[in-house]
């Protein structure tokens, strides 16, 4: 099971300070909801797409777009019919099928949705998870929360592997009986597999608690850290850029 969202590459976004990147992300996520012109929103999407193409690369752009394509199609097909006012674009006899306002609104919503998707996925594609957690700690995320997230990422493959092995052994014991079952039967047949997998996972809790205590968790002296964000030397510049782009683009494209 792949749990890594980071895509290794060498673009400028990879050298951007993760703390500034989070700040930039939050500002841009707010920016797409501000009253800006449709052209402005389109320009911002182009800027985001250009950043995605020049950093993680075309494959990332394509795979992200493929994952949201069904929803965009659904949005384009059905959303315009909710707006009945304005200039009619398509009419069948006297029934107005599509208005100009409806088409413009769905275009705005689609651009906003695509922008949000790329913004959120770009952060995780260009920043390793430990650095995101360090950046979040810099923003005062509690130590306990970052510890849970870090440890959960190491436990996911362990539990997923356990599930796969148990599922396989249950399937071998049933010898093809699962092929004849209907959908509900198949879900019901998951119960023994899920129970065994859960017991396996729950049994690891006392061991994990013990190893945390052995490593000094809960004591006054905190554990040693070997990883920090000191390699990013342009923090101020990155924060400045992160603040300037949304502010300037809002002033330019204000509706």
């Amino acid at each position, binding site marked *: 099971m792949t749990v890594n969202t980071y895509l290794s590459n060498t673009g400028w976004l990879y050298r951007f300070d993760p703390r500034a990147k989070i700040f930039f992300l939050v500002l841009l996520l707010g920016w797409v909801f501000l009253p800006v012109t449709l052209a402005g929103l389109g320009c911002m999407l182009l800027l985001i797409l250009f950043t995605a193409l020049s950093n993680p690369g075309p494959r990332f752009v394509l795979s992200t777009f493929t994952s949201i394509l069904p929803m965009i199609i659904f949005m384009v097909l059905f959303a315009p019919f909710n707006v009945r006012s304005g200039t009619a674009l398509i009419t069948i006899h006297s029934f107005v099928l599509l208005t100009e306002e409806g088409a413009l609104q769905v275009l705005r919503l689609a651009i906003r949705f695509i922008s949000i998707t790329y913004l959120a996925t770009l952060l995780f594609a260009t920043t390793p998870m430990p650095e995101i957690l360090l950046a979040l700690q810099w923003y005062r995320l509690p130590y306990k929360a970052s510890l*849970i997230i870090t440890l*959960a990422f190491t436990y996911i493959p362990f539990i*997923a592997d356990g599930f796969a092995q148990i599922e396989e052994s249950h399937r071998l014991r049933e010898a093809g009986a699962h092929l004849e079952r209907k959908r509900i039967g198949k879900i019901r047949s998951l*119960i023994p597999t899920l*129970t065994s997998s859960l017991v396996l996972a729950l049994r690891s809790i006392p061991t*994990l608690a013990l190893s*945390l205590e052995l490593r000094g968790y809960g004591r006054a002296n905190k554990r040693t850290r070997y990883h920090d964000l000191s390699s990013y030397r342009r923090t101020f510049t990155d924060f400045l850029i992160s603040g300037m782009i949304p502010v300037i683009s809002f002033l330019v494209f204000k509706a």
Partner: protein
Amino acid sequence: MNKEKHALKVAVVTVLTAVVVVFTLVIRIPTTKGYLNLCDVAICFIAFTFGPISAFLAAGLGTAIADLISGYAQWAPISFVVHGIEGLLIALIVRKQPLSKMRILLAAIGCILTVSLGYFVLSALFISTVAVAAAEIPPNMIQAGVGAVFGFALSKAIKRAYPPVSALSW
């Protein structure tokens, strides 16, 4: 659980978070705006077995991490809020023992309403449109309903198969 057992609490939430992630990613049925999965089975199991705090944290974090891993990062904050509240609500309803059939039914209804209405309101407000968000209400209701039924069944099965689990709730 003793209030001083910080390491055990961290271990419980960590493993349960990982369990929610795995359940979310095991079976994935694509829909118009994401996918249907077994996350509600895991959340309901945790809420029925472990208490409100574990349920809130594991459900919220687990579903948010699953969204991040599977390339639906834009849904992560919404999943954190909706599923976190779902876990918390169910756990609070079923907390009082002995558990009556009425409270189990109430927990299942709470689960269905939280998931379907939560996703509808938040995705219509922040990500998509009312029409698109409304189209996802029926599949979300089915997913949450199946989750409540199988989550309760799993909770009973686990309590029989692994009795020490009762000592891990708080």
